[in-house]
């Protein structure tokens, strides 16, 4: 009766939709090639980590700028 929080629906059925589509088709579409697919997924994962890491780095950069003795 109670819907889950709206954000849960947005996340699962809207935001992550392209991830499902991509991963499923990479793994199951012809021609099947586990090695190449895995390389693709690893690339994607590394890029994701880099993006999040860059955000953290940006935060540090801003902290430094905010505290520069200018």
């Amino acid at each position, binding site marked *: 009766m109670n819907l889950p929080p709206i*954000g849960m629906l947005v996340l699962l059925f809207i935001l992550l939709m392209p991830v499902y589509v991509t991963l499923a088709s990479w793994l199951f579409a012809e021609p099947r090639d586990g090695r*190449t697919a895995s390389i693709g997924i690893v690339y994607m994962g590394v890029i994701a980590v880099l993006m999040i890491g860059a955000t953290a780095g940006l935060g540090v950069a801003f902290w430094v700028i905010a505290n520069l003795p200018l």
Partner: protein
Amino acid sequence: MTARTDYSLDHLRGISKGYLLLIGVLFVGVLFTLEAIIHQVQRGLVMTDLAQQGTQGGATWGLYIGTFEWFAGMAVGTLAITGYIRFNQLDQYDMIARIGNIWAFICGLSAAWLIIIDLGTPHRVLVILTNWHETVLHSPLAWDVTFVTTLMVFTLTMLVLSLRLDFLRMDNDLPLHTSIVKRLVSIGATEEEIPKLESMRQWLGLGLIVLALTAGLVPGLLLGVVGGQPGYFGAESGIIFLVSGMLTGIALLSVTAGILRMRYSWRDKLSNPVMRGLGQMMAAFGFVWLIVMFVDVTTVITDMAPFYEQRIGDAMITGSLAPFFWASILLVAVPTFFLAAAKYRLGVRLQTLAGFSILFGVWIKSNLTVMEPLLFPNLPGIQGTYTPTIVEWVITLGAIAIALFLFVVALKFIPLATVRTTEVSNE
């Protein structure tokens, strides 16, 4: 299987005077921006003209968020086009797909950047990520962060995969800086991968389309789900954002393609049919955009509309916001009309001009969309005014300069021309 034909990589080599000048000018712009950023971060957002609506008579969000919406829109538009070309394997538009791919990433980056620079405490940006698992359940801003991150991951992955494929097929000598890119994307690459890579690129194209057309609504919803403000029409704002994004995305690609074609005389790669196709899409989405704007305004100008909304409608049509509103409409309507009237054969120069006009028009409207409701308080307070400070102008225009700078630099590192089949482009 496509034939190996000529790979003109002339844009990667040599540095002309014009290029140096462009880089120089943009770099100066970037330095100015950096100065403004240091200024703002050290002194705080007091350096902007942003203020509390109603009681301080200001707008809470201004140029930064308006330009964010514009960049995010272009990111969605270029993303959708890249995905469409890749998924349908429109080899004729190969170069457009690469340009769109690069722009989608840069626009996503610029959008994220503008959100961060708009924060009161930008050094805490990581807090958004550490609390994400909780806030994503209810905060549209957390959805937006998710979307922009996904967008950047997907576009970069697409860039990596498609470059990997292109490099596998290329046997040209590459300049040193490009061979570094090649090494980065070609880890463990073998010729046997080619069929699978083609398939993966195609399906990732579908992923991009899905990302653009579903999650692409989210930056619009950022405003639309806020019930507190009149004028953020929930049902429309996602659609308006998406349509604006498609329009600006195509305009951006048309402008880029036009300039590149003129600069490098790429009549074969960016052929007349390709340019015309872009012009056609630009006119079509320009028309849709105008209809959406009409619908948007209709909501606020009827006598039956709630008073809060009417006030905004009046300001847009005849009041204080009218010059901006009508400017944005004309900047889109006029080129759309001429594109259609000339059956998309305006010529590269005029079409590029049309693209600029549309980009500028939608930029004005993106800013208006953000500010309109914030200038009109719900409770009897002061009607707001907002005059961006020099710091805001420098950082906003600087964000555009940074985006251009990144693209111009990318142009020297990333091959745009890819595999072309011989049988196309004989119109």
